[in-house]
């Protein structure tokens, strides 16, 4: 498969999945605030954004398996950097919460942090190594 086709397939799944994730997340926040939902409802509704999130990671997995070995290496390096960023924040902020009374960091933000760090790393490594974004 060409990288162009793999990229099209990637974004064709990633973008709608991200939109479903964001809108359902905002929907749960709104519903929890405005509607008299039963206590278990937010737990049940969380299935929707989690399914969308799983789709985003499936899109990334599929993209990596469909591109060639050099481009795959760039993506894998970028994912590792994204994970390192998440681990650094979890550990660093966790220590500050324990020992410096830092305000609690919502673990919800670790997923967006991963995607931002991954995207920045992919851009930098691609520019350096001559791959394609």
């Amino acid at each position, binding site marked *: 498969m*060409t990288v162009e086709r793999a990229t099209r397939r990637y974004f064709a799944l990633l973008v709608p999945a991200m939109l479903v994730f964001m809108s359902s997340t905002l929907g749960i926040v709104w519903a929890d605030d405005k509607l008299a939902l039963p206590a278990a409802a937010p737990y049940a509704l969380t299935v929707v954004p989690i399914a969308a999130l799983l789709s985003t990671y499936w899109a990334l997995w599929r993209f990596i398996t469909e591109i*060639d*070995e*050099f*481009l795959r*290496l760039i993506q894998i390096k970028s994912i590792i950097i994204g994970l390192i960023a998440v681990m650094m924040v979890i550990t660093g902020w966790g220590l500050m919460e324990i020992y410096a009374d830092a305000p609690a960091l919502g673990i919800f933000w670790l997923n967006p942090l991963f995607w931002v760090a991954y995207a920045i790393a992919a851009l930098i490594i691609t520019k350096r*190594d*001559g791959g394609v974004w």
Partner: protein
Amino acid sequence: MRNRIKELRKDRQWSQAVLADKLDVSRQTVNAIEGGRYDPSLPLAFKLARLFGRPIEDIFDD
């Protein structure tokens, strides 16, 4: 790792895009291999060797 891919490709008057197409990889991958920024896997090295009709050690040199 040094290689003679650029020289062999130019002998045949192929562009990087043409070679990439023959190898079923991206042009960026051909560019990275030619520039020595990426060493190909063994299957891809064999593919290159078959395409150019030469042994691998004639194309790649460590």
